[in-house]
């Protein structure tokens, strides 16, 4: 149109408001972030829990399992025996109840065993040879990770079977051996050489054989003892030896009444095993109270459910064949048990000591540079390396919490540092993301959903057989449970940001690709960040 004939006030051609870049109004900009979910932060094995739950939520169990396997080679075992501190940290606990992470992990582990899934491995052979001493969880984990990195691994194991305390400590009713065997076999099938009944006694000789590095994870197997005055001692056994004998089918007859001395998980397991071996009465004598016991609350509860009687605040003072004199204790202000001078007697045929274990470090005493503390634990640096270059150590034999999960985590960590050390480099851990705190979530969006419950074996069978006590989840329940995850700090593609922007300034990139902010038009109102359920958007000040 000719301008001259245009009436007043419509002399300009119409245009889209897209000509107006409202992004210039902004004082803060939304930025997509990946925060560290508290579960991941807590996991001693360094699992990306939120990551594998995300895949499980959509029913892609194989993808979920593969993510899990990047960090932990034994999900089916872990889902059964791990004390799951991740669940204590889980943000959902502040909403209703924590996600039952261990139960979903167990489902995925069992699923993989059933389907015969294999971990995805792609590294080229490095030409390096690593010796692993001990086929417990820590040694197996190191062997698995080192193999994934391309190194040739040999495990030497003193005992007749692999598994360490997972086999000779943790009873079958908590960890069925078919599950343990399947997960060990899968590691060995990757090309790990396992030499059984081969106790390593000389580290330098092993290096001389041509191993480029050694990872020692021999556990803590020497039962602690105490002196109790005994006029005529009845039968006294130690817990770890008894559990080992149960496993090999060589357990002695225990009599009608058994006293277990100690308050840790081993005490609980041995008392529960005694019930199953036919003891009519299995009692635990422990010098502190329930609050101070090293065993987990659920372990004590499960033992009590099965009829184990726990005598809290008692020490054994004297034994006269089947008569046990015990003294009542009191907890003082510092939390230490103090004698009261009041005595009781208990009757029992057998005493089982479950007072903890020390590390057998005899094979290390002649190795120069290795530091061994008074209690037997071996000193390692931040790389898990001992004072002897190339000799790394982990699991129960180093100073840390003694659990399967910590052992598996040590195996992974040591493998990374061994790999770097073999290449003459240093392992650079990736930067830790800021924690995804509960306060950063917009929990209004999550549906109410109570935690699913795992069924338990009938009580009669719990008292008479070693069948597994706690049952797994069905597929439907596992899927439901996975979907209870809030996806803390990590986008789960709910489209909220894409929807709530009054300025259409959020660009949806399609499934799996998340979103992008169009900073030409984003005014920085912050609605996307406020309405993101999982706190994956952060507002940062504009500079200049």
């Amino acid at each position, binding site marked *: 149109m000719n301008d001259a004939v245009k009436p007043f006030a419509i002399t300009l*051609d119409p245009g889209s408001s897209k000509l107006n870049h409202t992004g210039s109004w902004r004082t803060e900009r939304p930025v997509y972030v990946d925060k560290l979910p508290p579960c991941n932060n807590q996991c001693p094995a360094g699992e990306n829990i939120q990551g594998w739950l995300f895949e499980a939520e959509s029913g892609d169990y194989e993808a979920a399992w593969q993510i899990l396997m990047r960090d932990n080679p034994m999900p089916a075992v872990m889902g059964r025996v791990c004390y799951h501190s991740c669940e204590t940290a889980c943000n959902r606990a502040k909403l209703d109840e924590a996600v039952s992470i261990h139960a979903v992990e167990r489902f995925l582990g069992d699923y993989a065993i059933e389907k015969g899934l294999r971990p995805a491995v792609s590294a080229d052979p490095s030409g390096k040879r690593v010796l692993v001493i001990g086929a417990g969880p820590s040694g197996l984990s190191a062997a698995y990770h080192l193999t994934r990195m391309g190194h040739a691994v040999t495990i030497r194991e003193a005992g007749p079977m692999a598994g360490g305390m997972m086999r000779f400590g943790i009873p079958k009713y908590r960890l069925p051996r078919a599950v343990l065997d399947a997960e060990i076999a899968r590691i060995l099938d990757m090309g790990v050489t396992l030499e059984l009944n081969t106790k390593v006694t000389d580290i330098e000789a092993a290096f001389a054989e041509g191993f480029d590095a050694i990872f020692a994870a021999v556990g803590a197997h020497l039962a602690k003892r105490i002196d109790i005055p005994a006029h005529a001692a009845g039968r006294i056994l130690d817990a770890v030896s008894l559990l080992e004998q149960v496993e090999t089918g060589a357990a002695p007859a225990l009599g009608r009444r058994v006293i277990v001395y100690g308050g840790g998980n081993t005490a609980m397991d041995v008392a529960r095993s005694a019930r199953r071996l036919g003891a009519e009465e299995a009692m635990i004598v422990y010098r502190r109270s329930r609050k101070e016991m090293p065993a987990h609350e659920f372990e004590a509860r499960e033992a009590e459910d099965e009829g184990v009687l726990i005598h809290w605040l008692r020490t054994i003072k004297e034994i006269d064949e089947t008569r046990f004199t015990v003294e009542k204790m009191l907890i003082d202000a510092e939390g230490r048990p103090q004698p009261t001078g009041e005595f009781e007697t208990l009757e029992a045929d057998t005493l089982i000591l479950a007072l903890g274990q020390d590390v057998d470090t005899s094979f290390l005493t002649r190795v120069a540079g290795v530091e061994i503390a008074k209690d037997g634990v071996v000193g390692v640096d931040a790389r898990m390396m001992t004072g002897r270059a190339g000799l790394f150590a982990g699991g129960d034999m180093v100073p840390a919490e003694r659990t399967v999960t910590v052992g598996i985590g040590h195996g992974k960590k040591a493998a990374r540092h061994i790999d770097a050390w073999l290449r003459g480099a240093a392992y650079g851990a990736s930067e830790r993301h800021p924690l995804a705190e509960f306060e950063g979530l917009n929990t209004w969006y999550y549906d109410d959903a109570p935690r699913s419950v795992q069924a338990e074996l009938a009580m009669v069978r719990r008292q008479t057989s070693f069948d597994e006590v706690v049952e797994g989840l069905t597929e439907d329940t596992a899927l439901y449970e996975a979907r209870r995850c809030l996806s803390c700090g990590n986008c789960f593609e709910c489209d909220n940001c894409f929807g709530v922007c009054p300025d259409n300034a959020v660009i949806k990139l399609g499934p799996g690709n998340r979103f992008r902010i169009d900073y030409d038009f984003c005014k920085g109102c912050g609605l996307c960040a406020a309405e993101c359920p999982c706190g994956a958007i952060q507002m940062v000040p504009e500079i200049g």
Partner: protein
Amino acid sequence: MNDQAETGGQRVRFYQTGTHTVGNRLMDAATRTVQSSIDRSNAITSGHRACQGCGEALGARYALDAAMRAAGGRMVAVNATGCLEVFTTPYPETSWQIAWLHSVFGNAPAVATGVAAAMRATGRTDVRVVAQGGDGGTTDIGFGCLSGMFERNDDVLYICYDNEAYMNTGVQRSSATPAFARTATTPAVGPHPGNVFGTGKNLPRIAMAHEIPYVATASVADLHDLEAKVTRAMAIGGARYIHIMVPCPLGWGSASQDTIKLARLAVESGLFPLFEAEHGDVTAVKTIRHQVPVEAYLRPQKRFAHLFREGHEDHQTLAAIQAMADANIRRYGLLGEGKA
């Protein structure tokens, strides 16, 4: 397990966030919102001049995109004067990506009636007509035209974006301004600060009194519900009315990122009940998920700041507002079956 709609072929009926979020990768595409789709019409595109966090810009896109999908893209929208009109069309630009028409402040219902008549006359009965205005344009100046449109049962869906005052001209009180709110014309001074208690009108109920086929209230905090209502309304002929609460950061004195939160708290406190009515009778209500006291809704808004002066909290007024919420809860049964 939950209040989710059952969706075809999916056995586990629990979807983490269910239908509370805009989309949900775990649910069938058909049960996700129009807004979650990259194919939504974006009736109002980027570059408009609405304030940061404007609830009206958001509510209008929510409603019109849903209406566009329901109408298969054959739709004309008429607009009264107000923020929505002004921030979308600063000469010579427009944000509208749909057929759109503006006349004056008070006549949008009549213009829409005319558009519908024109469509009928030209045989374009496939084209649907939507009219829209702010609360001032709807409850005050446009009220006569709107009542006529209802009374004649003209084939128009009228949508009111209620931000509870005349925002475009600087926050003057309207007949939709809530009791005790401070506006430019109801200042927070004197013995009874803010808007006078007992005044104003409830337009959804007035619309119901016309016994038109469909009346509904909706909120920018509940997108699934809002879209379902618009879709429902578009499937019906005759006069229909939807009243959407759209928080206004400027007029309410609230933080721009709190727009949806405030809309949600208005619903969850019972102050803004979500319901549907057909031919004058309430047919459905959306129950409150997590009830909150009215204070949670009022406190973040500067227009109610005079109720929360340090050491001089106006408990009496708060109790009066809580009583209004409680009355809604009772009237509509907002806590669900058998709960008051």
